[in-house]
């Protein structure tokens, strides 16, 4: 009797290993598997997953809030996930789990444009709609991308702001996050393009420094900028840790008013520096709206309202009608120009996010 049970158990084991293998192989097998279960999948509400870069990021929390709002409006189930550390490895693990859970769509803020490709391709082969948001993944590993704001508009607005702050003349520097951050690099590229215009011929971009979104490193980088370029007139920091660290350094060194600071930052982090005038004003889109737009896009794809091709239009809830536009090799949905935070409105926003 014991032998019989051992045989049965080992057979079960062998089959479960085999089925696990077939899940890993792309194409026919995997889609067959999900077809078999699609009955149970259609019973409950549709599952929409959101993967942010890392846990404990208030910006991400707000984005997830907006995402959840959009999903709740259409009666879906929102699954919110994020790895502990902002790494591609952590996100790949979560993607694998979500494929096993058979969600209908995955919205992801990628930690790496290319490293996620195998995992995301596998998800798409399993019939999951993959959308990137905030930080894009490459065009082959997504259906479409939801861009928080037009990168061209961000680059242009930053340069316009800095030019106004320093009177159109002098040295400026950029303090970015990591040298690998897709969105940061694109914005900086557009800033450089904008600076080529004749009206900015007296503005010189002396350095792009990378603070890696770490407090201590951003502080060291800012201090180095001040020492290496004594004639520096302004710093643009398109990242929230960077702009707050730069604001702190300028405040501590009493350079408020002498060196202007602008960029993209969280209103709560920047409130004291905007109120004190160290940073006359700065920008950010509304992360709640970004998450909301991502949720609506996911819903439109899952319900078959559109296919994510150039020229497709869909209703994005309270944000109105959105159009899918071209983005290099892929497609994207754009949100519009970033929102300006200054002394007038920072008070009401600092408690929001």
């Amino acid at each position, binding site marked *: 009797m014991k032998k019989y049970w051992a045989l049965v158990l080992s057979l079960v084991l062998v089959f479960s290993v085999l089925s696990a293998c077939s899940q890993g192989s792309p194409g026919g097998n995997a889609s067959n598997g999900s077809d078999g279960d699609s009955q149970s999948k259609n019973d409950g509400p549709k599952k929409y997953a959101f993967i942010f870069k890392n846990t404990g990021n208030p910006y*991400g929390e707000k984005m997830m809030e907006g995402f959840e709002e959009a999903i709740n409006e259409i009666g879906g189930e929102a699954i919110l996930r994020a790895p502990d550390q902002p790494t591609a490895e952590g996100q790949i693990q979560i993607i694998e789990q979500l494929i096993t859970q058979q969600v209908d769509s995955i919205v992801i803020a990628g930690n790496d444009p290319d490293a996620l490709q195998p995992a995301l391709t596998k998800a798409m082969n399993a019939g999951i709609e993959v959308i990137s948001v905030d930080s894009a993944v490459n065009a082959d590993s997504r259906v479409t991308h939801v861009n928080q704001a037009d990168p061209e508009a961000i680059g242009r607005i930053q340069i316009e702001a800095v030019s106004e702050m320093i009177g159109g003349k002098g040295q400026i520097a950029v303090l970015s996050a990591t040298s690998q951050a897709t969105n940061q690099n694109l914005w900086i590229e557009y800033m450089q393009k904008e600076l080529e215009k004749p009206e900015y011929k007296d503005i010189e971009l002396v350095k792009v420094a990378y603070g890696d979104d770490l407090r201590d490193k951003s502080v060291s980088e800012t201090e180095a900028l001040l*020492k*290496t370029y004594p004639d520096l007139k302004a710093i643009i920091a398109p990242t929230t840790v960077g702009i707050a660290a730069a604001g702190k350094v300028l405040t501590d060194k009493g350079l408020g008013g002498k060196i202007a600071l602008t960029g993209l930052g969280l209103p709560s982090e920047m409130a004291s520096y905007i109120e004190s005038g160290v940073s006359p004003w700065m920008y950010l889109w509304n992360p709640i709206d970004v998450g909301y737009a991502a949720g609506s896009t996911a819903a439109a794809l899952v319900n078959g309202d559109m296919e994510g091709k150039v020229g497709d239009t869909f209703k994005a809830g309270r944000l109105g009608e959105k159009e899918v536009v071209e983005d290099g090799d892929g497609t994207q949905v754009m949100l519009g120009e970033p929102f300006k935070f200054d002394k007038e409105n920072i008070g009401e926003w600092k408690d929001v996010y």
Partner: protein
Amino acid sequence: MAVHTANAPAAETAVKKESKLASLARFREMGLLAFIILLAVGVQIRNPSFLTVENVVDMATNTAILSILAVGMMLVLVTRGIDLSIGATLALSGMLVAQIVSANSSFSPLLAVLTGIGIGIICGLVIGGLVSWIGVLPIIATLAMMNIYRGFTYMVSDGKWISSYQMPESFVGIATSSVFGINTLILIALFIYASAYYFISHTRTGRQIYAVGSNPESAKITGISEKKILMLVYTLMGGLSGLCGVLWVSKFASAQGDTASGYELSVIAACILGGVSIAGGSGKLGGVILGAVLIGILNNALPLMNVSPFWQKGIEGTIILVAVLLNVAVKRGVERNHLLRRRI
């Protein structure tokens, strides 16, 4: 040993030949110091603003927290242990204290520092208990507690940050104020070095830490309680991490859930650079401070030298490796000298 050489006049000349190098290198961390000086000169040539008063003060302020933690880590390493949880303890203490001061703006800064130390001590006691009473390997116990404390930080903060506008002036002032023209952070670090020096070299308990680390069995036979010593070093480490949590949050005027994640590795690197042995039993305060200074110089100098961000990490690693190799080479030379003298 000096007595031995005096008793052997025949070998006097041979000793004199060695003594030049020996007296220079009696200080074992000579190699490291020489390396730091060379590096400083190199950076100075590249960017003249490196050795200005302002930059040196900035560098010292930025390195103070690292060096305080390195002192505690040295004690842990000496007992053959390791503490990976300090970054998480730091974040937890910083976050809790930031929440307290943001809710209660009249909270005195001194009390905030003491609260931070208290939180750190509790965190350290838990680890000390796991390591000494239950006998969990230090690397496992601290790895587990690192995740628990980090998770706890996210939990109490609900993923939100405490920003500078929520912190009272007096609290942010802990890190920016100065006494006699010297920044408070630097003064606190100096105070920690002085007390650590006294504790390590002039108290019985301090010497017992080394005894437990270099030979636990004989330490036990001589009546030293290993459990008590282990408990003590992890508690001290926790207390210092808690202190640094408050200093960190005050310095950067912001508390995040992922504050100082991975910072423990920089601290351990500073200790190893300073000649602390991972195998336990040996480590000198002077060396550890030099190690922290080298890491501080690297963090400050690489941005100043205008090297490409793609190269920065690689260069940092190479410099650390070269410094360790040089230090080991010099140390070996010194030890050979000791052996030579012993033969005489």
